[in-house]
């Protein structure tokens, strides 16, 4: 009788531990049910009273996978190549060519981009020190340096992503590194995909750049214009279609404001549209006006063309080294009423930024009371404030472009010296955009751009459907199994059912204890576990029946049944466990959830089937001498 006392104690201990781990899940459910029935002030009061309890329960309950609660899961890959490219000095054509090749290869190769780069250099027998660090450093050192920089960039990237996600306000987000360059971000309950993409991908590199003087700009534009007109390569400027819709807005630089005529007055006299296009290929698409002095207006449809024009080698040569063209982030509607079109603005700016976003310590979005539109105000640190005062002081009446991720948000005129280290960004279209900008500025600029290589989102209704389906099928499956065991194996079956209940409880408790995630396939895994659990009992009971038929006493039959069946149970379950482990390694997300419940389930069900039922039998046979009926 005492021989099973030890096992009995262990079982009771396990039950207590299981209840301890499962309690938060129940509590979380219970509290939220109560919360649902309250409203308004009552609910606020309730939350205040139970704040600690709510938080605690939520943290320790069984986590639901995204496929059950809805939300988004995104895999980000840090663009290490860009980082490596940016770290290089003295970039020349050879370097650019190498980068081009590495970029192409990296798209499909598994090898680390830094290693690819090294191989390219070595195959051309060029020392990496020509572009990196000091001339004396050998390839190994530089390779290690680049790898270190990438690792640091990825870690910093993770920190910044975590910051942004925290500020965005997601409950229970999960951010993890995957492999060398990837970050997995799981955001339960999130539905606004476009926002999240923006949140995660924005490099948020903030720069303040001075606009070039209008007359300088005009001269350079004229040069470009003449160059293009003279160039025989008119294939990129098909006459009519170029002008498609580019009737200059009525504030054009000509004297006439007559928008009805298609003749354009220029200092050279009146020209028809086609003539104008041929003679002034640049100005016909990048419109220069008195009202918008110093910048160019480009109709939406023509943006691509202008970009290509500016990218041309001959054009690039004409643009001075300290200057570049940056596009506005947004379009504006211009033109006579009834004939408005959307125009982008092209800003000619000084290439080197006066100030960068590193000096921003705080950002806040608000509605500008003067114009009733969303803006983001920024505060700089002391050093930044001093620089900003110097810059604004030296450039009164000039314009400074606020450039975020290489697009211009606004380019206000400097009216007077700004000493407080304040600045603001305008030009956002909606509050949510301003809010995102605030988050992204506060969290900081990503050291290297990230690409979203995998994205999965599940709507809440599908999640609820899945939960309902999962609960229904679990209930039916358990019900059928329990019924069958009781009918087919009588008392033995009932005891097996009893152990089955423990199995499910222990399984869920282990899941909670490990903070594992329950997914839809995970629920399937639990159901399959039941089947496996049943198998172990079936093996034992069939054996017991055989032994009894062979003439053994009930006691002996039970002993024989358990011991003889053991090897079969052990071997078969172990192989299933092996496939579970392999599946856990290879799978992601929901499939991993399945592998997890399968593995836990096998171990737990073996414990229940072998130990728990045995103890019960021992108790019954030894203490009360009950003949256990195995049907």
């Amino acid at each position, binding site marked *: 009788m005492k021989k099973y006392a030890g096992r009995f104690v262990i079982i009771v201990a396990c039950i207590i531990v299981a209840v301890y781990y499962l309690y938060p899940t129940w509590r979380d459910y219970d509290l939220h049910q109560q919360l649902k029935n309250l409203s308004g002030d009552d609910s606020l009061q309730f939350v205040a009273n139970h704040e600690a309890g709510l938080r605690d329960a939520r943290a320790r309950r069984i986590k639901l996978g995204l496929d059950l609660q809805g939300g988004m899961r995104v895999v980000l890959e840090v663009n290490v190549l860009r980082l490596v490219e940016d770290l290089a000095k003295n970039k020349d054509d050879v370097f650019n060519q190498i980068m081009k090749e590495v970029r192409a290869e990296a798209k499909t190769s598994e090898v680390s981009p830094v290693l690819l780069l090294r191989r390219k250099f070595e195959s051309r027998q060029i020392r990496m020190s020509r572009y990196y660090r000091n001339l004396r450093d050998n390839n190994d050192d530089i390779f290690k340096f680049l790898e270190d920089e990438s690792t640091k960039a990825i870690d910093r990237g993770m920190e910044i992503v975590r910051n942004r996600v925290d500020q965005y306000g997601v409950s229970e987000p999960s951010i993890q590194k995957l492999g060398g360059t990837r970050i997995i971000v799981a955001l339960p309950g999130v539905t606004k995909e476009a926002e999240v993409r923006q949140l995660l991908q924005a490099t948020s590199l903030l720069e303040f750049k001075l606009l070039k003087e209008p007359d300088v700009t005009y001269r350079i534009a004229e040069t470009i214009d003449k160059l293009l007109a003279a160039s025989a390569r008119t294939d990129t400027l098909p006459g009519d279609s170029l002008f498609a819709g580019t009737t200059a807005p009525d504030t054009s630089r000509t004297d006439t404001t007559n928008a009805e005529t298609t003749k354009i007055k220029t200092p050279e006299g009146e020209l028809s549209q086609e003539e104008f296009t041929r003679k002034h290929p640049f100005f016909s698409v990048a419109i220069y006006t008195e009202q918008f002095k110093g910048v160019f207006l480009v109709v939406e449809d023509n943006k691509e063309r202008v970009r290509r024009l500016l990218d041309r080698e001959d054009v690039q040569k004409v643009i001075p080294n300290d200057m570049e063209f940056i596009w506005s982030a947004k379009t504006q509607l211009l033109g006579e009423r009834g004939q408005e079109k959307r125009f982008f603005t092209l800003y000619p700016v000084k290439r080197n930024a006066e100030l960068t976003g590193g000096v921003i310590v705080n950002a806040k979005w608000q509605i500008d009371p003067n114009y009733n539109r969303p803006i983001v105000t920024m505060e700089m640190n002391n050093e930044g404030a001093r620089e900003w005062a110097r810059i604004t002081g030296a450039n009164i009446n000039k314009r400074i472009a606020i450039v975020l991720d290489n697009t211009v948000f606004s380019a206000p005129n400097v009216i007077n010296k700004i000493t407080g280290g304040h600045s603001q960004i305008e030009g956002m279209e909606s509050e949510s955009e301003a809010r995102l900008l605030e988050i992204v500025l506060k969290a900081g600029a990503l050291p290297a751009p990230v690409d979203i290589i995998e994205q999965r*989102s599940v709507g809440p209704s599908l999640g609820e459907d899945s939960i*309902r389906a999962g609960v229904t099928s679990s209930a039916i499956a358990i019900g059928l199994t329990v019924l069958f065991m009781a009918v087919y194996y009588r008392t033995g079956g009932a005891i097996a059912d009893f152990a089955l209940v423990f199995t499910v409880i222990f399984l869920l408790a282990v899941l909670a204890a490990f903070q594992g995630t329950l997914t839809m396939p995970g629920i399937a895994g639990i159901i399959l576990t039941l089947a496996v659990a049943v198998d172990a009992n079936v093996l034992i009971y069939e054996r017991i029946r055989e032994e009894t038929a062979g003439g053994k006493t009930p006691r002996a039959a039970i002993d024989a049944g358990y011991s003889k069946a053991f090897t079969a149970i052990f071997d*078969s379950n172990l192989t299933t466990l092996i496939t579970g482990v392999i599946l856990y390694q290879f*799978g992601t997300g929901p499939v991993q959830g399945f592998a997890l419940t399968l593995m836990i389930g096998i171990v737990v069900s073996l414990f229940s089937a072998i130990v728990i039922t045995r103890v019960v039998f021992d108790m019954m046979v030894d203490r009360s001498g009950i003949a256990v009926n195995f049907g």
Partner: protein
Amino acid sequence: MRFFGKTSIDFMGKRRIWYVVSATVIGLGMLSLLVKGVNYGIDFLGGTEIVVRFQNGVDVGDIRTAMDKSGFTKAEINTFGSDRDILIRTPEQGEGNLVGERIRSGLQTQFPTNPFIVQKEDKIGPKIGAELRRDAIYAVLASLAAILLYLGFRFKFLWAAGAVTALFHDVLLTLGLVSIFDGLIPHLNLEFNQTMVAAFLTLVGLSNNDTVVIFDRIRENQKLFKSMDLVALINMSVNQVLSRTIITSGTVFVVLAVLLVFGGEVIRGFAFASLVGIVTGTYSSIYIASALVVEVVTKTKSQGKLID
């Protein structure tokens, strides 16, 4: 209560017939695979997959028209549980959410009076697709190898080889049947994605369970009846465990059937593949695993002992 008394079915005697049956079904399955191709989900192909729920039922043909108009001519379109729920899958890659947005606007244009909500949207880049595909194959091969090693250690190598051959047989058979049934049954989504691979690995485990139980009994009997003819011994062993085999496989079958019917869309493909798997798994333990050993033993006239 019992279903079976003492039985003495001559399993091994009929084995040649079952070889033919197996070969035929596998052959048909492979043919179907060749003709239809593998219905890859975006997990392995890359691309975008959207599940939408319309307010009212829609005709799949109309959806196809909408997709063709939007330029997605390679789109795979299926119902997802009812004629209100549609699954659209296309391998095109696009910048950001472009593909998803184009699909959505295409649907809005085609069905202006039938609003829909997006239930699920997945986008996989090409590199990840290739990686997942490769990982899946490794996973299956690794499982088979691990099982071969473990069983080779617990039973003699010939038997382990028989067991793993049975597993190969099960995987091929299920693969073929999944291919044949794909598209045959309405609302049954049998695309080849990660969950489906999980189903295959599961059925490998379950089939092996069954095989091991039979082998264990054969091993025990060989110790007791040292001089019994192998075929007779196998027959006896299978008969002895028949009760357990039918009951366990039956229970798993019923449980999987419950999942198939009540488990919801996401799990349906998984349940179907596992269901087919449990049937072939039970069958293969006898007619492939044990039978293989019998064939080798009779050809080589060796002892065929299960343990050293």
